[in-house]
């Protein structure tokens, strides 16, 4: 390696096809992390030029200017200017443009030129532009801008050949470094650069007489106030179905496989600590991470398809005012909906929200959406305590209680969002809804496949390690110390978990919780539905096919109705999901927001249970 590593930075407006170009250049050789201290995703990859030069590329957050009006855009500005500590100063800045729509990018190029960095304009999606009758005089454009301009078709094989060739040429010359003349542009300068951009475009680009009628015609239906909402509902229905129905068999298969593996270890090894650690700590820990993969893959497949197609911005347009009433961004809709399946992919999906304040709000309330892991707990308690009665002649009482639990979750999410907007994140700049609705494009499967793969890998590497260590910790709490010889009852009753459970019991007693519930809540940290199995263990019920039913029967004799209702109320908020907390920590890049989420959910759970218990007692349900 004689030549040093060359550093490229990709800059462009949102929707410029920057990510598709990044995927085309680097393939699956990508590393996704966060910039230190901020919730901004850092995407880096590498490739080798035709002449054998090693190149490292960073895909910087999309922006319309270098003003840095959000943490994402500040990253773009600072990396381009070489101001970010620990970040290489780019040897070449590639400004990526959607060739069908150069207006906003050319203005950005004029601003980027002031930084003095070596700069090249990449006219991406050149094939689509040509098909639509847009012609660009590339040579004159290059002359007018005073920088090299290349065309590219990121999604086609060999579509980046010219870009690579020019990169090699630029790498070979050692152009004298120009000084940075960039300063934040005043309104007058912004206007002047846009006018200059319009002048350059008028001289070098000819637009077709007829604009893209395809997008206009699709939008006439998709953005129609009635038809548009119906289409959105249909898309969401399919997506929701996919997450619930398609992922479920895979998830069950994975759970079964890990259970079988655990059983194999159980049968092979002699009973003891090692056996228990491997079966209940390691294997079930790894299993509890892997089991989320089908949902994550399916949700990201949908999200990336819709994003690539250009639909996500439309969904935000349709939902903006409806969500806006609760202080949420239109784009929060899909992450929140995903959270009904599981908060983990939902929280990961908040990456579609650019603004930090909106994203944080969405992350904080996502766990309040009733996730599928709560369903086993709900069904267990409801079937044990709520009679299967018809009320008002048509409604099933149990179904009604279930619906009520979902409704309370949603209502409290909206309420919390409202409070956050007014009290917590006041110092973050609000983002008014101003958003480009890109022309529709056919999604490119390869780029989507790379995107899904990157997300899945990131989940396994980053969230997975945290989830796994929490699982091992929970196993430790439930297994140590081992029961004394000749002890009666289940082993968990002698463990640290039991000690903690008995210690916190006085705190939970006002909610009507006994120490058995307190103990079950600890393994329930692993995943909410584990609490069901844990209750079975604590009440010393043998597992097996009808275990859940038996647990229900036992509980019906041991708990009062008030206690059961109180536990249901607790589970609406149920802060105890280690995986969700781990993902929040990873996605926000700080333990602070994890602690905030845990704290506020715990407080809500406590208050809700306390109120439920005492109201139920007052109605004689003790």
């Amino acid at each position: 390696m004689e030549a040093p590593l060359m550093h490229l930075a990709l800059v462009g407006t949102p929707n410029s096809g920057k990510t598709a170009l990044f995927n085309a250049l680097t393939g699956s050789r990508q590393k996704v992390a966060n910039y230190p201290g901020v919730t901004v995703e850092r995407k880096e990859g590498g490739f080798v030029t035709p002449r054998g030069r090693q190149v490292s590329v960073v895909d910087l957050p999309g922006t319309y200017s270098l003003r840095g009006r959000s943490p994402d855009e500040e990253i773009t500005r600072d990396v381009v200017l070489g101001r970010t500590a620990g970040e290489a100063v780019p040897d070449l800045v590639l400004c990526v443009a959607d060739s069908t729509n150069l207006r906003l990018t050319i203005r950005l190029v004029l601003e980027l030129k002031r930084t003095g960095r070596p700069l090249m304009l990449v006219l991406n999606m050149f094939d689509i532009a040509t098909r639509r009758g847009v012609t660009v005089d590339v040579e004159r454009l290059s002359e007018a801008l005073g920088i090299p301009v290349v065309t590219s078709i990121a999604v086609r094989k060999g579509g980046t050949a010219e870009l690579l060739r020019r990169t090699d040429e630029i790498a070979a010359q050692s152009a004298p470094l120009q000084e940075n003349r960039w300063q934040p542009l005043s309104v007058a300068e912004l206007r002047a650069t846009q006018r200059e951009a319009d002048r350059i475009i008028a001289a070098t680009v000819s637009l077709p007489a007829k604009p893209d009628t395809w997008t206009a015609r699709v939008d006439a239906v998709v953005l129609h106030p009635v038809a548009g909402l119906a289409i959105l509902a249909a898309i969401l229905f399919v997506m929701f179905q996919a997450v619930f129905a398609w992922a479920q068999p895979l998830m069950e298969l994975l759970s079964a496989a890990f259970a079988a593996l655990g059983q194999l270890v159980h049968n092979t090894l002699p009973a003891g600590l090692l056996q228990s650690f491997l079966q209940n700590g390691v294997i079930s820990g790894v299993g509890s991470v892997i089991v989320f993969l089908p949902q994550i893959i399916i949700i990201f497949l949908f999200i990336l398809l819709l994003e690539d197609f250009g639909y996500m911005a439309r969904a935000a347009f349709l939902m903006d005012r409806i969500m806006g009433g609760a202080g949420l961004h239109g784009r929060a809709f899909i992450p929140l909906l995903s959270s009904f399946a599981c908060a983990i992919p939902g929280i990961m999906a908040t990456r579609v929200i650019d603004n930090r304040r909106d994203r944080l709000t969405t992350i904080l309330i996502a766990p309040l959406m009733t996730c599928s892991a709560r369903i086993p707990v709900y069904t267990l308690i409801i079937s044990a305590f709520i009679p299967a009665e018809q009320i008002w002649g048509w409604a099933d009482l149990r179904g009604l209680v279930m619906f009520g639990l979902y409704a309370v979750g949603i209502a409290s999410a909206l309420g919390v969002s409202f409070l956050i907007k007014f009290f917590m994140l006041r110092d973050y700049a609000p983002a008014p809804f101003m958003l480009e609705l890109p022309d529709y494009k056919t999604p490119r499967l390869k780029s989507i496949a790379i995107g899904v793969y990157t997300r899945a890998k990131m989940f396994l590497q980053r969230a997975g390690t945290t989830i796994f260590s929490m699982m091992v910790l929970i196993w430790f709490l439930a297994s140590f110390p081992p029961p004394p010889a000749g002890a009666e009852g289940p082993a968990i009753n002698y463990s640290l978990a039991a000690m903690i459970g008995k210690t916190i019991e006085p705190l939970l007693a006002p909610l009507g919780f006994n120490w058995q519930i307190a103990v079950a809540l600890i393994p329930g940290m692993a995943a909410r539905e584990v609490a069901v199995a844990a209750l079975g263990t604590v009440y010393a019920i043998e597992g097996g096919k009808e275990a859940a039913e038996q647990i229900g029967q036992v509980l019906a004799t041991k708990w009062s109705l008030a206690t059961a209702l109180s536990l249901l109320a607790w589970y609406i908020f149920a802060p105890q999901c280690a995986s969700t907390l781990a993902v929040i920590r990873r996605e926000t890049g700080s333990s602070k927001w994890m602690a905030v989420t845990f704290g506020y959910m715990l407080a809500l759970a406590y208050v809700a249970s306390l109120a439920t218990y005492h109201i139920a007692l007052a109605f004689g349900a003790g």
Partner: protein
Amino acid sequence: MASSDQTDARPQMPLGLAKRGYSGVIQHLAAVNADSALPAIELESRLIELGFVEGARVEVLHEGIVGRDPIAVRIENVTIAVRRREAMAVIVA
């Protein structure tokens, strides 16, 4: 649409009041008029960055469901979604 050629003769109005199908030319920006959460300079900067400059032709393509808000505006060959509140800063005729 029968878009008139006498845009100069038409009265000026904020884009925030335009109905679907309206087509006109941007006369100037008046960010102080908009009741936006953003300071006037910031709002004006963002509007310019999205291509709202004097002389650009705009057309209101779509309206949202609640209160016909937000609106989707075709500006030259880009479509921008914006709330009516912020669009009040764009004076068209």
